[in-house]
């Protein structure tokens, strides 16, 4: 099982490799990827440098092109594919069918991974992308239970990658318009989810108000741990119940470490760590712990559950970097659904 880690810049990329990542995914400094935060991502020359480092260390490098090109502006995305092919990157991660088509026609030897933004959750959808564009791998949205992941892995025509750790996106990725409904910026078109320039924290006596484009997402006490303000993790009320509640999800992170044996048995090819927007320290911390856990499982699969239960350091390290310091199995667990 591959450990795939995020890199928002060269420092994070080095941190990921030093901490034991098998592969790293990154994006360019423009709207060809859905994490186009200011100060983040790679110029073409930085990507070439990253690729050199990866090749020297025998690790893999994937380029994320997970937005959908705007009409008339496709050339930026095509150029990114050309660049990935020129550098012989290990894969391009795409969601848009015109990009998959371009890449598969022009560079048949460039491996294509289907981005989570394509929202492929079943064998027929995966077969579509395999048949039309010869994708090698697909990243599954965070909407399937572990049983559904297992069942799908048995019949999938391509390798599967799942989210292992990081921010919990509770909606089928690529089909969520909550950010664009409130802020006008959509992850699908190159804006990020809940863009930072639309976020405002407002002190009101003993309370702190969190606003997204002036819409009140949550009210907290001054010393409460705050999650990043996304619409799906706010507290709202109904006419039946005027007490504010997390009606969709509370600020939590995904942590599937306890599922490593089941994911390995299902033949899952890659475990993805989320967080290109996070610091090199986060990347180091999370990569180290997951490297240790995967290696512990591979060394001794039968004692992994016991090792996991006893290894308080792993839990403490991951909780520390989790949203609200709380983690969940999310949709993998039927109870959550």
């Amino acid at each position, binding site marked *: 099982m591959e450990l795939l880690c995020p890199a928002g810049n060269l420092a994070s990329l080095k941190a990921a490799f030093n901490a034991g990542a098998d592969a790293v995914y990154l994006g360019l400094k423009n709207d060809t990827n859905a994490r186009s935060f200011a100060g983040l991502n790679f110029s073409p020359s930085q990507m070439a440098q990253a690729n050199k480092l990866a090749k020297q260390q025998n690790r893999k490098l994937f380029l994320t092109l997970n937005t*959908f*090109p*705007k*009409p*008339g502006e*496709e050339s930026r995305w095509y150029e990114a594919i050309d660049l990935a092919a020129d550098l012989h990157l290990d894969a391009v991660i795409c969601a*848009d*069918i*015109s990009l998959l088509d371009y890449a598969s026609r022009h560079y048949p030897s460039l491996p294509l991974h289907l981005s989570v*933004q394509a*929202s*492929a*959750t*079943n*064998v*027929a*959808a995966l*077969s*579509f*992308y395999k*048949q039309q564009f010869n994708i090698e791998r697909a990243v599954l949205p*965070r*909407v399937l*239970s572990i049983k*559904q992941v297992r*069942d799908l892995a048995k*019949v999938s025509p391509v390798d599967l990658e799942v989210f292992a750790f990081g921010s919990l996106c*509770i*909606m*089928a990725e*690529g*089909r*969520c*318009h*909550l950010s*664009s*409904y*409130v802020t*006008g910026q*959509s992850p699908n*078109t190159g804006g990020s989810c809940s863009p930072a320039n639309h976020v405002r924290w407002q002190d009101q006596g003993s309370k702190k108000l969190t606003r997204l*484009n002036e*819409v*009140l*997402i*949550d009210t907290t006490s001054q010393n409460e741990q705050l999650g990043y303000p996304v*619409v*799906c993790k706010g507290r*709202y*009320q*109904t*006419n039946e119940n005027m007490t*504010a509640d997390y*009606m*969709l*999800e509370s600020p939590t992170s995904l942590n599937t470490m306890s599922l490593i044996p089941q994911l390995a048995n299902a033949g899952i090819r890659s475990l993805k760590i989320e967080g290109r927007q996070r610091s090199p320290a986060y990347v180091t911390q999370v990569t180290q712990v997951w490297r240790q856990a995967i290696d512990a499982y591979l060394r001794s699969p039968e004692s992994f559950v016991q090792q996991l239960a006893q290894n308080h350091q792993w839990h403490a390290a991951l909780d520390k970097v989790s949203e609200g310091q709380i983690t969940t199995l999310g*949709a993998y667990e*039927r*109870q959550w*659904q």
Partner: protein
Amino acid sequence: MKYSLAPLTYCWDKASVFDYYQAMSETKIDCVYLGEVICSRRRELKFNDYLELAHMLKAKGKQVFLSSMTLIESQSEITELTRLVNNGEFAIEANDMAAVHLASQAKVPFVCGPAINLYNRSSIDLMHNLGMTRFVMPYELSQKWLENVLRDNKPTFETEVFGYGYMPLAHSARCFTAKHHQQPKLDCKIVCQQYPKGLLTQTQESQPLLRLNGIQTQSAARLNLIDQIPVMAQIGVDYWRLSPSSISDIELINQITASDLTQLASIPPENDTANECNGYWFSKPGMEIQ
């Protein structure tokens, strides 16, 4: 301009659904999309019920499409989808790539519903080559976007725009209505049936924000682009889509279809104008009104 009726997104009881479509069949609406698109646990209407409605509407001269589920997660749902695609008579509305795949393989013509991510002309043309006859613009896109897509060369596929109703904004594994009732999804008792227009959710300042509808999250505000129908006609939109939310839709459809393009802007809003939106069409946040 021709008019279409989106698939019903709410869990109404069978009699209400039949009454609604019976009444709709008497209107001048041109096209009806039918089927359960949200949750396979909703079984008020079975596949054969939808076929019965489809035949009734077809007999009244309506163009009918059978709509697929939006989020397909299990083999049993693929089996149902295969049955839908192989109905032998009606074209389908594909709301997931699984439906695109099965329809294109079976050579069944299909409409790409608004939940299929088609964000540029190259992607739309690829779908057209696979058998897509009509394209419904994704919810979050704008007039300007559509003009860019249709400007260069006139397409041979049809174009449809969602123009009225509560907008589907997201789909999850989690059932939010069941969660609100502290019930597990596997034993949800179909509580969503208690909310014929979804469960209105407001901010802590009582600003309506979302409408929870099972695993789907909708806009609390109702999209209203009636006054933009003439603009859409000029751009080359073939169908203007209304999403059902109550029996009073019938009255609105009658008003719209009885008006010529110049009269549409003067159609009085139904009610609750404070809770309307049209932002996406004007390249603004979807919840805004221009």
